[in-house]
């Protein structure tokens, strides 16, 4: 159950809503227990139901204004080269405190993504749903999932460059 609560928290960013999603998921699973296919893992089945309940709650919330993702995407010079240089990020530390710190930093950066892209990145890269499962859960096409995921990863890279790159900015503008 802790895993289900974590899934719902990541999608909803709110403890009360996350508990509501898990509760609804258990009730839905209980009511649909006759439809459970024995060859599937119960934990995987519950995970999918929880993701769907969390998305339902997310949709039911008042829609907030969504910022454009464009400012977080890489820019290029007219000749197609990057408009900035990139510097190598330090290797992640192995000890538990640094892992927790890194996880908190990444979580905070993900929360800065525009909602439609944040959700796709969460479902694909963190919950490890397939492209098709993600498309069905959100109600968009598989191709739209692929496009949003790619843009979300690039945007998250930009956000992380400011947070885990060397210094305040991991990039240097290239003179045109």
């Amino acid at each position, binding site marked *: *159950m*802790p*895993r289900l*609560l*974590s899934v719902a*928290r*990541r999608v909803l960013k709110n403890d009360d809503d996350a*508990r509501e999603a*898990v*509760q609804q998921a*258990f*009730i839905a699973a*209980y*009511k649909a227990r006759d439809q459970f296919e024995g060859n599937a893992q119960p934990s995987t089945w519950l995970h999918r139901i929880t993701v769907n309940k969390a998305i339902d709650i997310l949709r039911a919330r008042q829609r907030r204004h969504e910022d454009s993702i464009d400012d977080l995407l*890489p820019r*290029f010079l007219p*000749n*197609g*080269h*990057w408009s900035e*240089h*990139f*510097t*190598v*990020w330090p290797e*992640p530390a192995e000890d538990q405190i640094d*892992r*927790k710190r*890194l*996880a*908190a930093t*990444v*979580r905070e950066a*993900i929360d800065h993504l525009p909602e439609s892209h944040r959700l796709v*990145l969460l479902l694909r*890269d*963190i*919950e490890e749903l397939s492209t098709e499962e993600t498309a069905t859960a959100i109600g968009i096409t598989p191709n739209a999932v*692929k496009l949003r*995921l*790619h843009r979300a*990863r*690039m945007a*998250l*890279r930009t956000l*992380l*460059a400011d947070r885990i790159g060397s210094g305040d900015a991991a990039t240097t503008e290239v003179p045109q």
Partner: protein
Amino acid sequence: MNCREMSQFLDEYFAGELPEAVATEFNGHITRCDDCTVYIEQYRRVITTGRAVRNEDEMCECPEELIQAIMAALRAADR
């Protein structure tokens, strides 16, 4: 292939679905371009770092009141 074009194939590259016709140009470009080499490594870190978030999140404990609420709801659903 230039950097902009390379960036458009990153997701297929990491999914192992780079079209054969593109792979030669893609690999040729990244062996010559230091910025693309660094960018690709950072894109890879973005993908793998999601697992770190999940592993840390799942160490949390489940609140007792949630368990009680679910048990009560299941009993109600059974009636």
